[in-house]
């Protein structure tokens, strides 16, 4: 009985991880989060505008992000996370924030000193997938959804085996 209940819980827990929503966002849907560039706001405190990455716990979404990271030549500047012309993405240091919507904003709207804005080219749905992959590079996604292999040869540990780090405001991080 206990085993059956455990199995049921495990089966349900895996649903989000395995879902492949090819038409998650219908054409024209705006998935860009509202941007708040400064914590200073006039008037009373507002509710936290932070959003969760829809693909933060989705293995297919993160794997797609990993493919797009190469297709859209993120590797050109950031390499496979070690950095080069652009800052490294594997470490603890985040110039413009490690929250999913901050990473989204960095990709969509660009950042000073070199990061171009891709928001008008890359559809929001794909930016969320790339964001999920960028989170996974420094262990900021659920361990059971992080990629375990790579299409290209590089010497890094697979994302699955990297040290887990908590995602602020996202309870979805699982120990690995």
């Amino acid at each position, binding site marked *: 009985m206990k085993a059956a209940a455990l199995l049921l819980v495990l089966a349900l827990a895996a649903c989000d991880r395995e879902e492949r929503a090819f*038409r998650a966002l219908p*054409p024209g849907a705006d998935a860009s989060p509202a941007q708040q560039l400064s914590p200073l706001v006039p008037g009373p405190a507002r509710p936290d505008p932070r959003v969760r990455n829809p693909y933060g716990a989705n293995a297919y979404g993160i794997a797609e992000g990993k493919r797009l990271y190469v*297709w859209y030549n993120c590797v050109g500047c950031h390499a496979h996370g070690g950095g080069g012309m652009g800052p490294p993405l594997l470490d603890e240091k985040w110039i413009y924030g490690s929250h999913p919507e901050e990473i989204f904003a960095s990709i969509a709207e660009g950042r000073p000193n070199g990061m171009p804005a891709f928001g008008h080219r*890359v559809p929001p749905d794909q930016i969320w997938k790339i964001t999920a992959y960028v989170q996974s590079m420094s262990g900021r996604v659920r361990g059971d959804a992080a990629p375990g292999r790579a299409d290209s040869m590089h010497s890094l540990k697979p994302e699955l085996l990297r040290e887990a780090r908590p995602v602020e405001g996202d309870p979805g991080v699982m120990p690995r």
Partner: protein
Amino acid sequence: MTRRRWTAAPSLLLAALTAGCGALPAALDPAGPQAARVAVLWWWFLGVCAVVYLLVVGALAWAAWRGRRRGARRGSPQSAAPPAWADDPPELSADPARERRLALAVAGAAGATVLILIGLLVGSVITGDALAGARPEAELTIHITGRQWWWEVEYPGEMASERVITANEIHLPVGAIVHLEMTSADVIHSFWVPRLHGKIDLVPGRTTHHWLAAERPGVFTGQCAEFCGHQHAHMGLLVVAEPPERFAAWLAAQRRSAAAPDTAAEARGLEVFLDSSCVLCHAIRGTPAGGRTAPDLTHVASRATLAAGTLANTPGHLGGWILDSQGVKPGNRMPPNALSGEELQALLAYLESLR
């Protein structure tokens, strides 16, 4: 009612059996030397296996009939109880001469089986050997790259400007021996045009050499023959075999860069193309678009199909594909594109001008 159903059954069965008789399966209607050899091998296999099957079934029937007759001689066939000889089985080795005859027959059958299997193996190896590898006298080289889920086709030229890259459509001159250099960009695919040749695997990180020739003009369909993911079933291609002069004209046309937009709508279409997601993956030679991860669109309107043989290439299909490719071929790599009506019409006008 029941009676009618019963009389309908045999005719239905007959219809089902003869439904495939209109034409032979593509692999048995060869249009090139490779497929011809494969077909010959296939008919040999069919013939030998049919003869062996008939002999085995005949021997079985004869043994059953003889056993029954012997049983009838020993006991009453009318009795409902088990026949009398069930308790008293015939002795197997009463007669040493008969035993020797039986041993000879079994050894002969086993020996014949081994010989037939070796014969089929030798035929198969000889055929495979004749089909595989490269041929030095090849007149034309084509590079084929399997991708999830389409085919990139490249005709290398002596100079970079003579190089042609297209997708899902291979043109070749009738009668010419064509050398294929094939690889895969992601997972293992298998290139198969049943009327021209046998299946050849495309392995990532490895180049496979193969040759083929078409003996008569025609359009032959091909298909990925190795499961490669979600849209494996929609990974088709066309091989167009045409007279050498028509092939030369086609190649010359494909070598040209994309036509500059003629009308205001086409110019606007190019602008839309360069300003939207298209440009991240697709290339159009002669424009700044240089993506290499999706099909080259330099002469997209000259192709017969869209999405690797999934749709006929019409403006309507192209529009639907651009807006909602995931509805047509779920899981494919092209994202849905949110274009306004005006942008879509301009983009279609431009893409349709790329002949």
